[in-house]
C-alpha cells in the first residue's frame, strides 16, 4: 500500500531538485573566475550538434532541441548563485562536505530517471490482475503523464522532452538491435513476400490516402482554417503518421499471443516500413521547402529512385557489418571477455553508418542482426552468448520504458501543441479506415500466393494491431515550424493518435480477440484420455506439417544452405566450430543407411558428449518457448489465436487435488508451439526447448538403431554389399530436409 506512494515522492524529490538547480542556473556558459572553484568539466551541456538527424530530414536545428540526453532545456550550468553562497561561507576555511550538484547533474538525472522507470515497472507487476488487463505500455504512458504534470507543477515549465536526437541515436537502436538480433530468420524470410507487400504498398497506400483525405477535409471546411497546411503539408503529415511502429507493436503483441506468422508479418512490416517512411518524409520535406508549384516530375522519379537506394543501401550496409562482425568473432578466442562488446559495437555502428549516409538505419540494423546471428552465436563462448542476450534485453526494456514515459511527459507540455478537433478526429478515422481497407485488399491478393492463407481473424488483428508510436512523434517534432506553420496542430494530433493507438487499441485488443475466437466448451476439466490424446494430436500435426513441407521456398533455401556451407561458414565460423558442425550435420542427416557405415566403423553414434554441442542451438533454428507462454498458460490469461493449437488456457486452472493432471502437464513433451512470443523481456527461457529436443532426438536415434539392428541381421547379406560401397562415401552425401 505504501509502495505506490514512493514513486511520486521520488519524483517530487527529483523534480524539486531539478527545479531548484534550474532556477539557480544561469544561461551563461562561463564560470565566474573570481570564485576560484575548480573547473567543472561537466559544465557546458554535452550537446551533440543540434538534431544530428537534421541532415536526414533537412530541418534547421532548433535551439530548444540543442541539448541531448535528458539534460535540462536550458544549459545546465554552474549554479553561480549557489557558488556565491559557498564562497560566502568559505571564507578561506576547508569545507569537509560540499554540494557538488552541477558536477554530477547530468548522469545523476539520467540515473534517477532510469531508476524511476524501473521501480515503476516493479510496482506494476505487484498486481497481477491489473497487469493482465492493462498492457504495460499504457501504464507507462499514464505514468509519464503524471510525471509530466508533477514536473510542470513543480517548476512551472516543461523541463523534459522526448528529444528526437536522443530517441533516434540511443533509444530506438537499442530496441531495433534487440529485435533484429533475435529475429527468427527462417520465419522472417518465409514470410518476406507478405512483409514487403504490407510494408511498402500498405504504407504508401495509408500515407497517400490519409494525406489526400485530410486535404479534402480541410477543403470542405471540416478542418479549421487556422490549420495552415496545403496539400504537401498534409501529404507530409500523412507519411509520418501512417507508419506502423515497431516499439508499440512489440509492446502490445507481447501481451496478446498470436501465432508466429501473424506476429512476424506485423513486426516485420513495422521494421521494413522505415525505409518507406524515411523516403516519403524526405521527399515531402523538400517539396514543402521548395513550394508545391516548383515540384517537377523529375522529382517524383527521384523519389522512387531514392526509395530503392535507401532500402537496398541500408540492407547492404547491414549485411556488410554482419559479415565483418562474424569474421571478427572468429578470432576472439583469447579475448572472450570483450566478445559481447564486439557484438554491440558492430551492430550499433551498422545503425550509425546507415544514418551517416542517410540510408534506412532500421533496415541496416535489422539485417545486420539477422545476418550475423548464426555465425556469431556459433563462434562466441556460452557465457558471452548469455551476456549478449541479457544485456540486449535489459537495454531494450529500459529504452522502451523510457520512450513510453517520455511520450507521456511530452504530452503535458501545452506550449508545444495546439488543438483542432476536426483535424484530430479526421486523422483518427482515416488512419483506422485506410489501414483496415489496405489490409483486407492486400490480404486478398496475398492469399492467392500463400500456402497458409490469412483468415479473417488474422486480418482483424493485423488492422487493429497497426499501432503508431514514438517514431511518428519524433518525426513530427522534428518538423520545422517556419516551413510547416501547422506544426503545432500536427504535434497535438500525433500525440493523440499515438495515445489512442497504444492505449485504447492496446487495452482492447485482448478482449477483442477473445470475443472473436471460436467459442469452445470451456471451464471443464479435460479427462486424462483427452489430455494425452490431444497432445499426441499436436505432435502428429507438427509431424505432418514437416512431412508435407509447409514452408514453401525449398529451392532457394537449399541453394542458400549450399552456398552457406561451402563458402560462408568456412569464412565466418571458427575452425573448430566448423569441424564440429560438419559432424553435427552428419548426425542430423542420419538415416538408416548411413548409420550402417558409422556402426561398421565402430563409432558409437550416441556418445552423449557429442550431442551436447553448445552450437546445437544455432545450428538448427530451434525457437525458444518463453516462460511467458507457460506462465500465462497456467494463469489462464493467454489469448491464443491459432485455433489448431491445443489451447491450454482451459479456463479452469489445473486443480490441486488432481495430481495426475498436474503431473501430465509438467511432464508431457511440449509440441513445437505455433504461438510463441519471441520478445518477452520479462521472462527468459532457460533453453528448455533445446533440452527437450535433444532428449527426443537421442531417444529417436536410439530406437532407430534398435530397429535397424534387428532388421540388419535379417538382411545382413544384402546390406554387406551396399555398406561396402557406402563406407567410402562420407555421410554428408544426403541433403538436409526441413
Amino acid at each position: 500500500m505504501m509502495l505506490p506512494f514512493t514513486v511520486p515522492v521520488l519524483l517530487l524529490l527529483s523534480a524539486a531538485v531539478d527545479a531548484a538547480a534550474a532556477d539557480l542556473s544561469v544561461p551563461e556558459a562561463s564560470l565566474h573566475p573570481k570564485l576560484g572553484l575548480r573547473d567543472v568539466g561537466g559544465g557546458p551541456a554535452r550537446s551533440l550538434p543540434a538534431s544530428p538527424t537534421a541532415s536526414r530530414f533537412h530541418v534547421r536545428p532548433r535551439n530548444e532541441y540543442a541539448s541531448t540526453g535528458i539534460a535540462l532545456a536550458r544549459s545546465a550550468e554552474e549554479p553561480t548563485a549557489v557558488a556565491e553562497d559557498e564562497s560566502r561561507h568559505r571564507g578561506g576555511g576547508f569545507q569537509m562536505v560540499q554540494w557538488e550538484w552541477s558536477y554530477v547533474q547530468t548522469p545523476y538525472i539520467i540515473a534517477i530517471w532510469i531508476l524511476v522507470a524501473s521501480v515503476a515497472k516493479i510496482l506494476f507487476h505487484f498486481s497481477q490482475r491489473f497487469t493482465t488487463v492493462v498492457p504495460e505500455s499504457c501504464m507507462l504512458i499514464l505514468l509519464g503523464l503524471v510525471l509530466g504534470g508533477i514536473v510542470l507543477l513543480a517548476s512551472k515549465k516543461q523541463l523534459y522532452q522526448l528529444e528526437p536526437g536522443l530517441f533516434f541515436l540511443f533509444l530506438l537502436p537499442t530496441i531495433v538491435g534487440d529485435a533484429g538480433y533475435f529475429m527468427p530468420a527462417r520465419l522472417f524470410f518465409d514470410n518476406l513476400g507478405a512483409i514487403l507487400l504490407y510494408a511498402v504498398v500498405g504504407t504508401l497506400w495509408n500515407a497517400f490516402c490519409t494525406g489526400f483525405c485530410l486535404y479534402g477535409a480541410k477543403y470542405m471546411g471540416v478542418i479549421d482554417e487556422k490549420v495552415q497546411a496545403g496539400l504537401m503539408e498534409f501529404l507530409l503529415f500523412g507519411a509520418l503518421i501512417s507508419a506502423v511502429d515497431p516499439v508499440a507493436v512489440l509492446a502490445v503483441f507481447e501481451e496478446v499471443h498470436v501465432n508466429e506468422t501473424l506476429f512476424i508479418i506485423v513486426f516485420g512490416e513495422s521494421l521494413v516500413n522505415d525505409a518507406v517512411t524515411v523516403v516519403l518524409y524526405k521527399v515531402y520535406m523538400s517539396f514543402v521547402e521548395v513550394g508545391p508549384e516548383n515540384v517537377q516530375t523529375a522529382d517524383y522519379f527521384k523519389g522512387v529512385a531514392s526509395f530503392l537506394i535507401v532500402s537496398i543501401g541500408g540492407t547492404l550496409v547491414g549485411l556488410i557489418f554482419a559479415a565483418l562482425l562474424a569474421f571478427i568473432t572468429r578470432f576472439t578466442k583469447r579475448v572472450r571477455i570483450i566478445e559481447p562488446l564486439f557484438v554491440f559495437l558492430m551492430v550499433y555502428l551498422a545503425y550509425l553508418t546507415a544514418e551517416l549516409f542517410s540510408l534506412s538505419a532500421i533496415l541496416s540494423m535489422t539485417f545486420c542482426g539477422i545476418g550475423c546471428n548464426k555465425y556469431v552465436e556459433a563462434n562466441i563462448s556460452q557465457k558471452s552468448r548469455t551476456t549478449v542476450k541479457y544485456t540486449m534485453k535489459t537495454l531494450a526494456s529500459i529504452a522502451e520504458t523510457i520512450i513510453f514515459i517520455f511520450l507521456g511527459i511530452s504530452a503535458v507540455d501545452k506550449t508545444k501543441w495546439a488543438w483542432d478537433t476536426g483535424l484530430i478526429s479526421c486523422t483518427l478515422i482515416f488512419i483506422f479506415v485506410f489501414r483496415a481497407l489496405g489490409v483486407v485488399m492486400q490480404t486478398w491478393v496475398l492469399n492467392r500466393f500463400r500456402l497458409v492463407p490469412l483468415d479473417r481473424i488474422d486480418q482483424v488483428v493485423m488492422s487493429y494491431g497497426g499501432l503508431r508510436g514514438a517514431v511518428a512523434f519524433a518525426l513530427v517534432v522534428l518538423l520545422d515550424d517556419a516551413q510547416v506553420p501547422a506544426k503545432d496542430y500536427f504535434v497535438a494530433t500525433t500525440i493523440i493518435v499515438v495515445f489512442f493507438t497504444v492505449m485504447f487499441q492496446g487495452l482492447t485488443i485482448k478482449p477483442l480477440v477473445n470475443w472473436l475466437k471460436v467459442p469452445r466448451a470451456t471451464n471443464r476439466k479435460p479427462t486424462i484420455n483427452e489430455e494425452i490424446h490431444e497432445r499426441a494430436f499436436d505432435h502428429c500435426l507438427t509431424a505432418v506439417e514437416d512431412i508435407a513441407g509447409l514452408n514453401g521456398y525449398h529451392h532457394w533455401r537449399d541453394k542458400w544452405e549450399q552456398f552457406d556451407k561451402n563458402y560462408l561458414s568456412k569464412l565466418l565460423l571458427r575452425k573448430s566450430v566448423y569441424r564440429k558442425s560438419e559432424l553435427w550435420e552428419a548426425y542430423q542427416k542420419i538415416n538408416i543407411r548411413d548409420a550402417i557405415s558409422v556402426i561398421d566403423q565402430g563409432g558409437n553414434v550416441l556418445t552423449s558428449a557429442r550431442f551436447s554441442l553448445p552450437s546445437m542451438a544455432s545450428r538448427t533454428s530451434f525457437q525458444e518457448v518463453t516462460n511467458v507462454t507457460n506462465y500465462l498458460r497456467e494463469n489462464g490469461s493467454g489469448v491464443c489465436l491459432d485455433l489448431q493449437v491445443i489451447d491450454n488456457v482451459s479456463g479452469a486452472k489445473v486443480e490441486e487435488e488432481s495430481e495426475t493432471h498436474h503431473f501430465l502437464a509438467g511432464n508431457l513433451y511440449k509440441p513445437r508451439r505455433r504461438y510463441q512470443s519471441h520478445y518477452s523481456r520479462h521472462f527468459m527461457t532457460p533453453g528448455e526447448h533445446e533440452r527437450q529436443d535433444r532428449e527426443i532426438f537421442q531417444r529417436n536415434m536410439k530406437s532407430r538403431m534398435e530397429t535397424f539392428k534387428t532388421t540388419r541381421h535379417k538382411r545382413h547379406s544384402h546390406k554387406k554389399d551396399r555398406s561396402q560401397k557406402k563406407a567410402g562415401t562420407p555421410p554428408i552425401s544426403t541433403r538436409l530436409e526441413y
Partner: protein
Amino acid sequence: MGSTNSTLSKIPNVEELMRETGFSPAHIVRLYDRFESLDKEKTGHLRPEDFGAINRLATNPIGDRIIGAFFSAGQETLDFHSFVKILAHFRPAENHRLRDPSLPEPVNSRTSKLKFAFQLYDLDKDGKISRAELLQVLRSMMETQVTEEQLESIADRTIQEADLDRDDAISFEEFRKSLDRVNIDHKMSIRFLR
C-alpha cells in the same frame, strides 16, 4: 498456370486422386513437388529412410510412429497416391455436407481422422490399444525423468477411464467415445490443406 498443367499430366490418375481426396490442382502440384524432393533417388517411391531424412521429425516424440503410419499395410514403399491420400486425412472437414450414405466416408471426416490417430497407438493392428502399447506411447511422450511406476499408474488411469467393457484394452469405439467432447476437426486439421 502452364507449369501446373504440365506437372499434373505427369501424375497418373490425377483426376481420381483429386476427387477422392478433395485437393485442388494447385495443392496436388505442391505435394508432388514435395514428394519429388523427398524422393532423392527418383524411384517414384518413398521409403522410410527418406522420411528419416526430414530433420524436424527427429525431434518429434512420435515422429517415427507417424512415419510408420504412412507405411501402414506393412509395405516398404509409398507411392504418390498413398502419400496424398494419407495427407488428405488432415484437411479441414467441410461443414454441413449432406452426405450420401452410399458414398464412402470422406477421407477427412471425423471418423477417418480418428482412425488414423488410432493407428498411431495400435502398432500391432489388432484393433485394440493394449496396456503395453499405451505404455510405449506414454514413454515416448513423457520426459526422461518420469519413472516406470509413474508411467504405469498413468496408463492404468487412462485405461480405467476409457475402457468400458473391462477388457483392459481400448478398442476403437472406446477411443472414439473418450474423445467425444473434443473438436477433432480443429485438433487434427491443417489449415493449409483446405
